C-alpha cells in the first residue's frame, strides 16, 4: 500500500507488450519487454515447485471477443498498436488531470447517463494506462475469436443483456450472482472483478491457493497427484499438476447453476462444465495464462482464451471484501423494483 498523497502523481508509460509466446513467432514486438524475460529464470519454492507467488492482475486492453472491425485477423497492425497505446496514455493522463466524459473515453451524459457514466472517473480510476498487446481478442480458439454459444445460450445471453439494470427485480433471486455477493464464477476469475480482479497466489508443499479479492473467492488446488473427488461446488473442484514449469489445473464438479442469473452467460456453471487452465510465468512480472472452457450445455465446442497477466508490486495487498455486509444495493434494487411496479 502506497500512502503518498493523491496529488503526487506520476503517469506510468504505456507498455507495449509482447504477444503470447505461441503467438510471438508471428509477431515481432514493437517495444522491449519490460520484464526482461531473456535474463530471467523461473524461481522455485524451497520444496522445488515453480514459484508463482504474488498478486497478479490483468492489465491489458484486449477484449474477450474479437470486435467486428478486426474480423479475419488475430493481431493488430503496428499502426493500430501505436494508436491504442497513444489513446490509453492520453486517457490515463486525462483521468489524472481530473477530466471526465469523452476525455477519459466515455460516452456523453446526454448519450447515456447510465452505461459507463455511473461514477466519475475518480471512483474507478485504474491509476495507470493499460497495456497494449497485439492480440485482437482474448479468445484464440475458435479462430474467429467468438464465443461458440449454443442457440439456447445465445438466447440466454440476449435476455441477460436486455434485463441488465431493468429487471424484473421481484425477488432476491432475480439479481445476478455477483449482485447477490455469491461469485462471478471461476472462468474469468483471473482477469475480471468489480475491484479490478486481483488474485494472490500462495503455495505450500502439495498446494497452490488462489485468493481472489472479490467475494472472498478462494481456490485451494492440490498438486500432489490426488484424483478428483465428487462434491459439486460453486467454484468446482480443482486438481493441478506440473508440466515442467507450467501449472496445469483441471476443474470439474460444478453444480448446475444455469437457471441463475449471471452477469455474463459465458461464466455460468453447469454440471457439464470442464475447465483446463495453464499458468506459465514468462518473466518476473508476466504470466501467460490460458483457459479452455468446455460445456456442451452452453457452447457448441470448447473455446480457449489466452490472457496476459501481470504481477503487481511485492507490497500489493488483497483486501477484505465483506460483500454481504455492505450490499445495500440488493435491498435498494428490490425497493426500486417495487416502486416501479407501483407507478406502472
Amino acid at each position, binding site marked *: *500500500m*502506497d500512502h*503518498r498523497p*493523491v496529488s*503526487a*502523481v*506520476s503517469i506510468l508509460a504505456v507498455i507495449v507488450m509482447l504477444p503470447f509466446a505461441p503467438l510471438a513467432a508471428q509477431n515481432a514486438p514493437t517495444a522491449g519487454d519490460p520484464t526482461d524475460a531473456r535474463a530471467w529464470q523461473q524461481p522455485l519454492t524451497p520444496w522445488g515447485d515453480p514459484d508463482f507467488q504474488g498478486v497478479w492482475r490483468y492489465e491489458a*486492453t*484486449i477484449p474477450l471477443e474479437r*470486435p467486428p*472491425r478486426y474480423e479475419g485477423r488475430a493481431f493488430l497492425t503496428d*499502426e*493500430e498498436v501505436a*494508436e491504442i497505446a497513444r*489513446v490509453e496514455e492520453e486517457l490515463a493522463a486525462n*483521468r*489524472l488531470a*481530473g477530466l471526465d466524459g469523452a476525455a477519459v*473515453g*466515455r460516452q456523453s451524459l446526454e448519450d447515456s*447517463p447510465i452505461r*459507463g457514466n*455511473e*461514477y*466519475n472517473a*475518480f*471512483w*474507478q*480510476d*485504474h*491509476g*495507470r494506462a493499460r497495456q497494449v498487446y497485439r492480440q485482437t481478442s482474448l479468445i484464440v480458439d475458435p479462430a474467429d475469436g467468438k464465443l461458440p454459444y449454443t442457440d439456447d445460450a445465445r438466447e440466454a445471453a440476449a435476455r441477460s443483456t436486455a434485463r441488465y*439494470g*431493468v429487471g424484473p*427485480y421481484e425477488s432476491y433471486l432475480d*439479481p445476478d450472482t*455477483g*449482485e447477490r455477493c455469491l461469485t462471478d464464477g471461476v472462468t474469468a476469475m483471473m482477469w*475480471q*472483478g*468489480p*475491484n*479490478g480482479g*486481483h488474485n494472490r497466489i500462495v503455495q505450500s508443499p502439495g498446494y497452490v491457493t488462489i485468493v481472489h479479492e*472479490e467475494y472472498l473467492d478462494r481456490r485451494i488446488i492440490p498438486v500432489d497427484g490426488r484424483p478428483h473427488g465428487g462434491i459439486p461446488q460453486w467454484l468446482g473442484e480443482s486438481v493441478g499438476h506440473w508440466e515442467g514449469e507450467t501449472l496445469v489445473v483441471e476443474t470439474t464438479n460444478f453444480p448446475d447453476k444455469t437457471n441463475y442469473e449471471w*452477469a455474463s452467460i459465458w461464466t455460468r456453471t453447469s454440471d457439464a462444465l470442464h475447465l483446463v487452465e495453464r499458468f506459465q510465468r514468462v518473466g518476473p512480472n508476466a504470466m501467460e495464462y490460458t483457459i479452455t472452457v468446455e460445456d456442451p450445455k452452453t457452447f457448441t465446442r470448447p473455446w480457449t482464451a489466452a490472457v496476459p497477466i501481470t504481477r*503487481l*508490486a511485492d507490497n500489493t*495487498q488483497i483486501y*477484505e*471484501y*465483506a*460483500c454481504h455486509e*455492505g450490499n*445495500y*444495493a440488493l435491498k*435498494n*434494487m428490490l*425497493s*426500486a423494483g417495487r416502486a416501479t411496479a407501483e407507478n406502472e
Partner: protein
Amino acid sequence: MRTDLVIGLAVIGQVLATLPVSAHHAFAAEFDANQPVKLEGTVARMEWISPHSWLHLDVAKPDGSVERWMIEGGPPNALFRRGITQESLPVGTEIIVEGFRARDGSFRANGRDITFADGSRPFVGSFSSGSP
C-alpha cells in the same frame, strides 16, 4: 486527418468495449437516470464497506430542516489503493454531490461527481501499482 479520426474513434470504441466491469451492480436497477440531483451538504459519515462505499450527507433545507442522504460511491478497496483514507472526507466537510436519485424515491443517490465548496475536486489523480 480523416484516417486519424477514424482510428481514434475506433480506439475509443475499443476502450469502451473493454472497460472492466465498473460496478458491482447494475446502476439502473437502483437509481433513476431521469432524476438527476445536486446536493450541497456536509459529510456526516463515510461507510467503508464492500461492495460500495456509502457517504452520508446532511443537506440543510430552506425551512431549517436537515435531510440525511446516503450517497453510493466507488469500492473502498479501489479507493484505498489510491491512498484515499477515512481522513480524506472528514465529518463536517462541505461538499457538493451530483448524481442520480434512487428509483424508490428515498434520500439515496449515486455520487457521480463530488466537489468541495471551493470548487476543487477530491480524489483527483491516482497512483500505486495495485489500483483497480
